[in-house]
């Protein structure tokens, strides 16, 4: 007889910092990010019967977070007052680069990171999952519910954009707000 389903609490706790980071990358803002993580954890508990014990809990949680995020964004779009989170529009006030956390504040580094904030959220997500979370392409495809080919093309576009910015990076002072 199966025992009642549960989620491994230590692993869940261990996943929180990564979920928060990814949520901040998605939403560009830490309060909204933590709301997203909270909602994700609540969903995870609701759906805990769907988690196959022994499989990668982190990937499963990232998948849930992606779905929650997409749904929230769809609702926000319907609400005309809300600004799209896609980086194509100017502004990007929401994308606060964690400059305070950097060991050294290099102009080039700030330029590149600012440009990450300007990437469309779809490209940003793939870039961070691949480059920072070091997920395999197949895992990313599963998390985002897109084909592996799309993962690769988004990644390629994101990197190319950042590379061009880095090359063209002038040494002009950044407008990025530095929070010490």
């Amino acid at each position, binding site marked *: *007889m199966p*025992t*009642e389903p*549960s*989620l*491994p*609490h*230590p*692993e*869940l*706790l261990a996943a*929180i*910092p*990564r979920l*928060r*980071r990814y949520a*901040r*990358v998605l939403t560009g803002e830490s309060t909204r990010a*933590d709301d997203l*993580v*909270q909602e994700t*954890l*609540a969903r995870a*508990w609701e759906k*805990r019967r769907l988690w196959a*014990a022994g499989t990668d809990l982190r990937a499963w949680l990232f998948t849930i977070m992606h779905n929650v995020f997409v749904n929230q964004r769809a609702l926000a779009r319907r609400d005309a007052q809300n600004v799209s989170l896609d980086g194509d529009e100017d502004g990007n006030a929401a994308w606060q*680069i*964690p*400059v305070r*956390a*950097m*060991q050294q504040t290099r102009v*080039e*580094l700030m330029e*590149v*990171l600012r440009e*990450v904030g300007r990437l469309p959220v779809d490209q940003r997500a793939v*870039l*961070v999952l*691949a*480059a*920072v979370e*070091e997920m*395999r*392409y197949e895992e990313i495809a599963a998390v985002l519910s897109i084909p592996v080919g799309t993962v*690769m*093309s988004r*990644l*390629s576009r994101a*990197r*190319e954009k*950042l*590379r061009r910015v*880095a090359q063209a990076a002038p040494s002009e002072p950044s407008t990025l707000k530095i929070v010490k």
Partner: protein
Amino acid sequence: MNPLPLTDADLNAYVDGALAPARAADVEQVLARDAAIATRVADMRQQNSILREALDPWLSDPIPPALLDAARMPRAAVRWRRFAPYFAAAATLLLGVASGWSLRDATLEHGGTPTTFARQAALTHALYAGDVNRPVEIWAAEEKRLVTWLSKRLGFGVHAPDLNGAGFALVGGRLVAGNERPTALFMYENADKQRLSLQVRKQPPGTSDVAFRYAVEDGVGVFYWIDEVCAYALSGQLDRAQMLTIGRAVYAQLAVAETATPK
């Protein structure tokens, strides 16, 4: 030789270590003779390290209490959990016993304790015993250093009992974050690669002794007991009788050790 053409996707996959070895070798050939492509690959690698350098520090931000709460089994689920024992008891006596304890666990969770000692022990065991390559922080080869370090961190003398008599050799140990206080974990392994862990932590003052208890948490059997000084949990996926035998051996050895070193 011209085995290519190379695509953007190839270069990205190469940087991410996602290319098949044969194709990666193709890329390396091109990198060796085409400086422009080599520069692009180096740029991508640098981008990765810049991104990590900037975003990794986020991971050590303190977790807000609301999220710690959200990681706990929600109350509704705990309530559901209360009824589980009765179904289980109807099925088997053993499960019935285990579930009786989960009823008690539920009460504790309501009381504000994040999780019970037995449950924490089982989950921690599952986390590290399942890690084939790195189940411990310090390996048994450095047992003396391990014991000294753990004793220092826990604030009292801990010992790794000798379970060779039961066929389990010490693999090593680590410090783990218990639900209330730091906990020492000793990992053991037998010839069949089955693993057992013994977790020890200091008991908060004012808690009463608990004689040998057995619980099953997520498929992990946990024998635990609490004396006036420490709480112990022996966890493993062995059958109950085996666990009991080994648990008694541990208890006997620790009792001797405790009387030998007054605290």
